[in-house]
């Protein structure tokens, strides 16, 4: 059945994303050529001049004219950003000033020599990283590139021309380019130019360079360049057609896979797979199988490099763990529906192959039912490297050999003692036991050495005839040989088990750490705890210093130190952290950006926004291993999610508070409005009544009306005072004018001012003798007490007795205002001093601010106020003020 054509949704999504990205990002135009001297820089400058004529803002980032007059002439009129000076090994070199360009923000910048390697100390190791940053910032870039510098073509060019290509640019950059302008001339023309001295050969003005410029080679290069351009165009076309859903030749059925390891062959295999995949127009994945075998640092580095190469070339990396490589590859192939697998032709190792059922290839072919296997020949150039790796290993364990030797000697001696008793066969077992024991502690090389040595010793000293290597009986020969084989096998197996256990242990620890961290993250209550959850626990898995920077309220990164870390970040490191945050990319040690920083900075990217940066300063300076990197990125992800959740919670809390203050504001507005309007209404009413001549002529009416006006005026005054006090209290801008006063005096002045309001009540004062002076603000405290008395008067019937008592108890002075009225309802007691609280069912006449102000004033003096109901009935307010150390009293003088 033929399926109706359906464009691959992934491809569509990619196309849409690309369109979106293109809208924001700058556009890249590469002036592409087959070799130096074809005129790329010239073409670039010509195009730039045209742009400038059109009115585009063009600047020159870096352009190498190499002294050619025609090229130099084209620079006239273009604004040049001066290069930055960097010192490296006491030499001052110049590099393109990336920050200057970014702050200048032109529409178009010219960057020559895309493959250039930057001086150490520059932000990125390669100029193409700089270009990517420029594009991300929305700046268009024109650049030049030779075909030899393209990653996927490097090997081919090396083969064709015989030169070594040292600087490369990944193919993804070509895909990123909006336009590739091929600057093409015939090889004959180029050679003519060379003769005319118009070609800059660089530092390699030597035989090799001259070998380069030979017609057949140039023709081959030209073809490679043309092909590459055609491919890119083809790719674009495909991308466009896929998006437009026209019938395209989209082969979605093929999927390629290649096994990648620390083997130096992997690099070649990866490149070959990529070429194959491109030709078949199929996606490809690279599988790394972790068999549990411990890799040396060298091998780890190679593996990481290989995997990085896969990503650069556009493949997907899949890591899986399984002691059996073939089973693992089969599994992944099944999961991913791989149709073709690429392997290298293996070297033959007879013994091992026999033991394990053939080479990897054989086993793979045998087991593969669903995929084709491509076998590629290994690259000759890389074999030398392989040997070096091989030889390096065993030397490092020199002391282990010494140990093994000693143990063998001891066992030999022991055997010598026991030989008369047990016989020479049993001595062999002794040696075997020794080998087994040793394999628990030492690595493979010394064990094998020990096995062989023990066999020899046994043969020489114990198997008759003694003192020779000859063996008389046939059974003994077989026995010796069998022993040797057994020793070798068991030794290496035990060793393998030990390594695997070790590996599992490390793996388990890592998982344990991750679990711990996630658990801590889930249980953390605030951002600080979240950050600490990571910094305190990561050290046990990946040793080094950690710190976390989180986003501040304005949206930028905040230099907030997480309590508990001893690492204070330097200014330079802080700059890298900010860069990582702003650009959403890893930066620092073992990345492409500012790799000479001492620490690694990983941005914490939450589901909807950037929330911070995790910084890690390693203890050792080796490259970051793949599984360590995975651990870090898992932790980063978890942390980012948790932090974002926390930020959102904070925001919702703020929203709630805002809603709360809105509500409060409304309440105040309503309350104040009522409180001011009520007495005003009375004043206006009574005053206008007075204006009526008939009413005004009656003295009693006149008196009544004017009394009402005065009373309400005073009430209005009170409300205004209270409002002012309230605002001052809540703003905290209340400045106390404290002075020594007698509380009795204060009370009597207050009572005097409240004469009218308390006129219907019976006020009794009980002030103790010789009370200590208190340091209060007289006016404010008077206000506080007035409000209190007013409250008492309002809520008790006329005729009620109000007692005011003042006495000293130890270190404080107590002022009690009590009445024999109805008392305060129990439910209202906790709320009585709250702003705007009115006892339900109470007569209107107060905004509910009075008592709140009293409380505020009392507290600002360091005192307390409580309310309760007396057992004998009625309410009692108790104010407690601390007694300060009394000031110096005047000397008493004699009587008159």
């Amino acid at each position, binding site marked *: 059945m033929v399926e109706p054509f359906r464009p691959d949704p992934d491809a569509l999504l990619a196309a849409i994303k690309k369109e979106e990205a293109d809208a924001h990002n700058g556009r890249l135009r590469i002036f592409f050529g087959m070799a130096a001297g074809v005129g790329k820089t010239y073409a670039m400058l010509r195009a730039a001049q045209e742009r400038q004529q059109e009115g585009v803002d063009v600047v020159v980032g870096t352009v190498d004219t190499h002294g050619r007059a025609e090229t130099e002439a084209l620079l006239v009129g273009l604004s040049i950003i001066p290069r930055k000076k960097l010192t490296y090994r006491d030499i001052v070199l110049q590099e393109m000033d990336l920050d200057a360009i970014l702050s200048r923000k032109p529409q178009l910048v010219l960057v020559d020599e895309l493959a250039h390697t930057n001086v150490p100390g520059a932000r990125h190791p390669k100029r193409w990283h700089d270009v990517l940053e420029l594009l991300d910032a929305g700046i268009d870039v024109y650049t030049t590139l030779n075909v030899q510098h393209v990653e996927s073509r490097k090997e081919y060019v090396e083969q064709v021309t015989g030169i070594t290509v040292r600087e490369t640019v990944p193919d993804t950059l070509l895909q990123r380019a909006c336009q590739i302008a091929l600057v093409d001339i015939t090889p004959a023309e180029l050679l003519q130019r060379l003769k005319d001295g118009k070609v800059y050969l660089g530092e390699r003005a030597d035989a090799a360079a001259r070998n380069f410029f030979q017609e057949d080679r140039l023709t081959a290069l030209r073809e490679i360049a043309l092909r590459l351009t055609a491919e890119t165009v083809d790719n674009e076309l495909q991308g466009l057609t896929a998006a437009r859903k026209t019938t395209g030749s989209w082969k979605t059925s093929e999927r390629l896979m290649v096994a990648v390891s620390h083997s130096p062959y992997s690099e070649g295999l990866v490149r070959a797979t990529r070429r194959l995949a491109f030709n078949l127009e199929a996606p490809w994945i690279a599988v790394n199988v972790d068999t549990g075998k411990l890799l040396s640092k060298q091998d780890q580095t190679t593996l990481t490099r290989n995997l990085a190469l896969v990503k650069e070339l556009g493949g997907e990396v899949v890591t899986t763990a399984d002691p059996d490589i073939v089973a693992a590859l089969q599994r992944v192939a099944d999961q991913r529906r791989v149709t073709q697998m690429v392997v290298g032709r293996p070297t033959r190792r007879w013994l091992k192959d026999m033991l394990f059922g053939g080479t990897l290839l054989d086993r793979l072919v045998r087991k593969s039912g669903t995929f084709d296997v491509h076998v590629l020949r290994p690259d000759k150039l890389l074999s030398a490297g392989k040997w070096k790796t091989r030889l390096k290993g065993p030397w490092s364990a020199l002391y282990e050999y010494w140990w093994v030797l000693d143990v063998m000697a001891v066992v030999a001696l022991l055997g010598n003692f026991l030989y008369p008793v047990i016989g020479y066969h049993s001595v062999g077992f002794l040696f075997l036991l020794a080998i087994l024991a040793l394999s628990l502690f030492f690595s493979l090389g010394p064990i094998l050495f020990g096995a062989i040595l023990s066999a020899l010793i046994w043969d020489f000293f114990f198997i008759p005839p003694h003192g020779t290597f000859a063996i008389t009986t046939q059974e003994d020969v077989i026995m010796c040989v069998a022993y040797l084989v057994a020793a070798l096998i068991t030794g290496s197996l035990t060793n393998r088990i030990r390594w695997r256990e070790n590996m599992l242990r490390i793996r388990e620890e890592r998982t344990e750490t991750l679990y711990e961290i996630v658990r801590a993250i889930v249980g953390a209550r605030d951002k600080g705890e979240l950050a600490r959850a990571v910094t305190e626990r990561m050290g046990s898995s990946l040793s080094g210093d950690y710190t976390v920077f989180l986003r501040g309220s304005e949206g930028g990164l905040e230099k907030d130190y997480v309590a508990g870390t001893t690492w204070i970040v330097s200014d330079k490191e802080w700059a890298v952290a900010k860069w990582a945050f702003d650009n959403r990319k890893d930066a620092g040690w073992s990345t492409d950006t500012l790799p000479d920083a001492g620490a690694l900075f990983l941005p914490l990217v939450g589901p909807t926004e950037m929330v911070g940066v995790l910084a890690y300063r390693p203890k050792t300076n080796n490259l970051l291993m793949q599984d360590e990197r995975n651990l870090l990125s898992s932790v980063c992800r978890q942390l980012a999610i948790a932090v974002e959740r926390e930020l959102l919670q904070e925001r919702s809390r703020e929203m709630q508070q805002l809603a709360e203050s809105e509500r409060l504001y409304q309440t105040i507005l309503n309350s104040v409005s009522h409180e001011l309007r009520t007495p005003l209404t009375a004043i206006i009413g009574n005053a206008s009544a007075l204006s009526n001549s008939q009413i005004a002529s009656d003295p009693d009416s006149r008196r009544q009306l004017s009394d009402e006006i005065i009373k309400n005026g005073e009430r209005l005054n009170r409300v205004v005072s209270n409002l002012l006090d309230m605002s001052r209290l809540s703003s905290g801008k209340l400045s106390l004018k404290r002075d020594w006063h007698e509380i009795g*005096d204060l009370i009597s002045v207050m009572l005097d001012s409240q004469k009218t309001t308390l006129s219907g009540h019976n006020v009794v004062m009980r002030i103790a003798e010789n009370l200590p002076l208190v340091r209060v603000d007289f*006016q404010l405290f008077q206000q506080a007490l007035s409000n209190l008395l007013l409250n008492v008067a309002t809520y008790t019937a006329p005729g009620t007795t109000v007692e005011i008592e003042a006495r000293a108890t130890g270190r404080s002075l107590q002022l009690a205002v009590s009445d024999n009225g109805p008392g305060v309802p129990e439910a209202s007691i906790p709320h009585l001093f709250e702003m705007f609280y009115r006892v339900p069912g109470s007569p209107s006449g107060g905004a509910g601010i009075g008592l709140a102000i009293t409380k505020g004033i009392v507290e600002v003096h360091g005192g307390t106020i409580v309310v309760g109901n007396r057992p004998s009935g009625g309410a009692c307010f108790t104010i407690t003020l601390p007694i300060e150390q009394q*000031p110096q009293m*005047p000397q008493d*003088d004699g009587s*008159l």
Partner: protein
Amino acid sequence: MTGVRILVIDDELAIRRFLKIILEAEGHTYIEAGTGQDGLVAAATQRPELIILDLGLPDMDGSVVLKRLREWSSVPVIVLTVKDSETDKVALLDAGADDYLTKPFGVPELLARLRVALRHKQSAVAEPVLRIADFQIDFTDRTVSIRDELVRLTATEYELLRILAQHAGKVVTQRQLLRDIWGPQAVDQSQYLRVYIAQLRKKLERDPSSPDLIITEPGVGYRLRLVDEK
């Protein structure tokens, strides 16, 4: 009290209108000025016998007006203050104002203050004896009696009472009292005053906890109250 020329310096029309009515009803001649500058000019040209000065003037601070005024005139000045501006009140009293009124104020208070201020001005010769209801102080032989009984006072107590009596009806600032009795180094020792005032009240007042005679002016000082103020 015979009618005198009273100058009111206040920028608020409502207050001036109200004061005009009251003062003219009492038989005084009313002069007004809306700014400090105008006020100073009016004081110089019209020679009032009492000035009511508002502190919140638009063109210059009330304290500056007072200062300028005091450079050449000792005319009694009553300042109108807003509640809570203690420091202003005290500073002005120390700078030469005779008394103060806190806004909003009623007519009785205003008239009482006026009477006191004018009385002190009118009596050029100091009376040897001051009588207020049951209280009597004889400045010449330095005796004080209450309800016809002689009261024993310490030297300091007498001094305190004497100063208050000499300014009877007017407020005397805390600073002034402390300075005059204990010297300039004691101007911040308000506790001295509290103690002595309390002692005086105990000896002189019918009900010390509700004093009639020696009145506390919150935040400012003390005043010996005259009968007609009740």
